[in-house]
């Protein structure tokens, strides 16, 4: 029975090792690990806080009400502003110092409207060289309401960034 002390010392070693393990684990495992599952819950908030580049059309329409009005009556009513103008959250945050460049319609319009047998048949398509001979689209069409009629042809390229 006097040798039982060896067993207790041995058991004590295990307990100390276990406590050291728990201590180290407490430090190296992030606090939010396991909050929602087997991952760091805090990562969700970090990913959600990344900066936004596309402001969203609601943001644009808050200031550019005239363009929003023109656009809502035309064939491009459902094309969002930044689909053509690019990401402009920086402009929305600071409209005076960040001024967007107007897109080149000869390139921009052709991206969607160049004729190809691969595109859906109902989608309006032209062969740009044949259709306008390389002239910029906005000499005849208003990009915000591109239907070809006398009113839009008389006032080409109304709008854009001010």
């Amino acid at each position, binding site marked *: 029975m006097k040798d039982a002390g060896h067993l*207790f010392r041995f*058991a004590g070693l295990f*307990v100390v090792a*276990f*406590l050291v393990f*728990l*201590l180290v*684990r*407490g430090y190296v495992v*992030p*606090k*939010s*690990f396991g*909050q*929602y*599952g*087997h*991952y*760091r*819950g*805090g*990562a*969700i*908030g*970090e*990913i*959600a*806080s*990344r*900066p*936004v*580049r*596309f402001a*969203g*059309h609601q943001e644009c329409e808050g200031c550019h009400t005239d363009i929003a009005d023109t656009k809502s009556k035309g064939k491009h009513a*459902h*094309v*969002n502003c*930044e*689909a*053509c103008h*690019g*990401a402009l959250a920086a402009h929305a945050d600071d409209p005076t110092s960040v001024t967007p460049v107007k897109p080149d319609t000869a390139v921009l319009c052709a*991206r*969607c409207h*160049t*004729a*190809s*047998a*691969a*595109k*859906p048949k109902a*989608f309006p398509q032209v062969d740009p060289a044949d259709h306008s001979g390389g002239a910029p689209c906005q000499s005849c069409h208003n990009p915000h309401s591109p239907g070809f009629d006398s009113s839009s042809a008389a006032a080409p390229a109304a709008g854009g960034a001010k």
Partner: protein
Amino acid sequence: MNISRRRLLVLLPAAAVAWKYVAAGTPEASPNYQMSEHWWGMLIDIPKCIGCGNCVRACQTENDVPDGFFRTWVERYHVTDTNMTNPEVISPDGGKEGFPVAKEDEGKYFFVPKLCNHCADSPCTQVCPVGATFVSPDGVVLVDQTYCLGCAYCVQACPYGCRYLHPKKHVADKCTLCYHRITKGLTTACCEACPTGARQLADLKNPNDPIHEFLRTHSVQVLKPWMATGAKVYYDDLDGSVR
């Protein structure tokens, strides 16, 4: 004496575990966003896609996706009626700058935009050895890039090829369904930039989301349904030849 020592041995680790939970604070939550109220997915309306590549460019701008890597990309299928099972599929630079003009030819053409399917039972999250990738409580498959080792198990496990190793960060990278946007009430960058409405963000837990009416009235399909991944990117009018 012996009994009290045994009690001590039992109580000490239990106290240590309890202390750990007390020490762990409450992580910050987004102010106006409740994760439990959303279940995100996407609708891809194939007949509306014109292959302009706006979504690919928007994604790269919004998320700093390195050149040659894609969180979303567009494929063009050309299926002839004599060879339905072996379509010609092209995706030049992910469709970022559009597609070459197709001449009138036999068979049919269509575009298939692809992205992470944000699977409810995703194979990629199951293989991660360190818990660095996960399905969030609102149904978005995310990567904790501070925790990822870059072992690329998940890249291999994804049946849709939607993941890559970031060439500079050397960690797994993928579509976040613009988590930083949808939690602020915005739509994703690809949906914002799509000129034809071929891509629509869908909140499957929101009863007022138009996705429910669409799913009721259209024949939709997910990619590789036989893999039972619980994919939440629904394709309208998906051809059987799409892989």
